[in-house]
């Protein structure tokens, strides 16, 4: 696992990055952002050229478009999240065979060895949140998640841009990457600052040729760039005491307005890097059945079914469940917010609902 704490720093050129990429892809299945059909998303990358350098997403509530920009890591976190790889949307957790009235079970663990190339601060925090849900704060840690997670190599990148829906500064997760990576890249003017974050990262950077030791100015430039992004981002709402305020706002009338606008389409929960809810399905034929774990959502009309009846009939009650979970329940369950401020649920809401506005309205309105 990746460590924390700042290690040695180097500076490399664009070519140096490519070398790093190639080094990593020889050992790992490399997951990184790419521009596909007009959208930047994480996918398994085959070549360095697939990285969407010089692209930037223009995002608003329910709106997304990619435009050109100057530089390399000009874009922000991709449209989809890393949970796709660690908590896959569909995963067969066991195979059941039936023979002479007895069953036998085969359990299979995914054995992919991923390198996440280009993880931003919000998504690093999201990984930490997922780790708590599935591993650290769970009495029964999840072996499927664990088997993937423990092998992951993380290349983090500091954001030098932000989009309209980002609110990491509000949630205290970014834009600066602070921990949880193997090494960290910061784009400087024409060169890249690499900082090691773990023993694995250190070894890898050591083996890289054509690098220079980072100079004081490099670190200063990094600080400057981060400050610039940070200061250009507005604080969306106050998080201090937010939980308590929300617990005081369970009353339906607070939620009905958004219930009218929400499609209950589930897109927010599915795009969210920390939403973990799942369903277990059976795919049976006569004597073999597969148990399949698929992403589920508290917005689904059958999510909380009891006695043939969904406990949360109204859309506003489902919205309340989602938002209360993210900003209140989660703290009681896992000790952190369930939201890292990545803004995906805002950009990708077909109804154009802005979560920040809803938090403000419900908690502080």
């Amino acid at each position, binding site marked *: 696992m990746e460590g924390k704490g700042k290690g040695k720093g180097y500076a490399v050129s664009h070519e140096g990055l490519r070398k790093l990429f190639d080094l990593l892809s020889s050992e790992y299945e490399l997951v990184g952002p790419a521009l596909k059909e007009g959208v930047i998303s994480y996918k398994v990358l085959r070549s360095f050229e697939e990285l969407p350098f010089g692209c930037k997403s223009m995002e608003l509530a329910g709106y997304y478009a990619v435009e050109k920009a100057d530089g390399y890591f000009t874009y922000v976190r991709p449209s989809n999240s890393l949970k796709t790889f660690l908590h896959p949307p569909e995963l067969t957790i066991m195979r059941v065979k039936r023979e002479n009235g007895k069953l036998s079970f085969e359990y299979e663990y995914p054995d992919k060895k991923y390198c996440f190339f280009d993880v931003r601060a919000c998504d690093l925090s999201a990984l930490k949140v997922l780790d708590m849900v599935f591993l650290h704060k769970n009495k029964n840690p*999840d072996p499927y998640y664990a088997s993937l997670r423990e092998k992951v190599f993380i290349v983090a990148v500091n954001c030098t841009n932000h989009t309209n829906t980002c609110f990491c500064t509000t949630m205290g997760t970014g834009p600066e990457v602070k921990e949880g990576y193997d090494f960290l890249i910061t784009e400087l003017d024409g060169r890249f600052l690499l900082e090691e974050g773990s023993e694995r990262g250190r070894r890898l950077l050591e083996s890289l040729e054509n690098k220079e030791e980072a100079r004081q100015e490099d670190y200063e430039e990094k600080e400057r760039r981060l400050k610039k992004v940070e200061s250009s981002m507005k604080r969306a709402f106050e998080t201090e005491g937010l939980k308590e305020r929300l617990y005081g706002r369970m009353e339906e009338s607070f939620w009905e307005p958004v219930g009218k606008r929400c499609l209950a389409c589930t897109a927010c929960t599915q795009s969210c890097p920390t939403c973990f809810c799942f369903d277990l399905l059976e795919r*049976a034929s006569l004597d073999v*059945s597969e148990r399949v774990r698929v992403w589920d959502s508290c917005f689904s009309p059958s999510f909380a079914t009891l006695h043939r009846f969904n406990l949360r009939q109204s859309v506003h009650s489902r919205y309340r469940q989602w938002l209360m979970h993210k900003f209140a329940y989660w703290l*009681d369950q896992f000790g952190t917010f369930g939201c890292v401020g990545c803004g995906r649920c805002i950009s990708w809401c077909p109804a154009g609902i802005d979560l920040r506005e809803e938090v403000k309205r419900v908690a502080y309105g």
Partner: protein
Amino acid sequence: MVENPYFLKEGRVLKVVKECEGVFTFHIATEEPAEPGQYNMLYAFGAGEAPITIASVGEGYVVHTVRAVGNVTRSIDSLREGDYLYYRGPYGNRWELERAFGKTLLILSGGLGLAATRWVFERAMESPVKRLIHLYGSKDYESLLYKEFYEKWAKGAEFHITLDRPHPEWKGRVGLITELLKELELEKDAVVFMCGPDPMVKACVKTLEEKGIRAENIYASLERHMKCSVGACGHCMIGPYFVCKDGPVFRYDLIREYFERKEV
């Protein structure tokens, strides 16, 4: 590698008792230690799993009572002696019986909820509980569970049954459980355990509070949709709690806010 919580264990069906139409009690061979209040996830081929409370235990076996309402429960109810059942567990917390030591313990069971209170009731009979009362409400005569134990229970505790509907065979009480409850003389520091449909739980709490019993002394075992039983699938959430691991038994004052509010 961490242990796989979804791993299913095999248990032989030692005994099957038909309780009433569509409800069967199974004795399943197991060595797993369990506590009253906990439940197992029972698996049925092609259908999936269902949480089923541990109704009791015996030497080397566990007792489950299952009402056939859907695919899993119907498949399980078709099992017969000598068949195999697959399960994982036990899961969940337990009834805090110690809290009733030296005090009055009132148990309220509605319908199949009796399965969830039966074991703790049996335990209570052997515990230093000052007074033990158990009120059991059933919708009709036909649905009464565990008939063979009534005599024994009536000796060890104040055990009363009430039916929602009269029946020619039935000589006992008819009426809602709350009516029975209203008539009951209770110390204010009595401890209450209950399990039944959500509306029954709400109505009983109201009556209890009218009698001066505080919500901190009331415990309810809740039923919610659940898939994983280890606090990861999200289905059973009620407010900040996962019924599967933080419950199914809850001290009422902690969940009241969520339980009594619509659609939480």
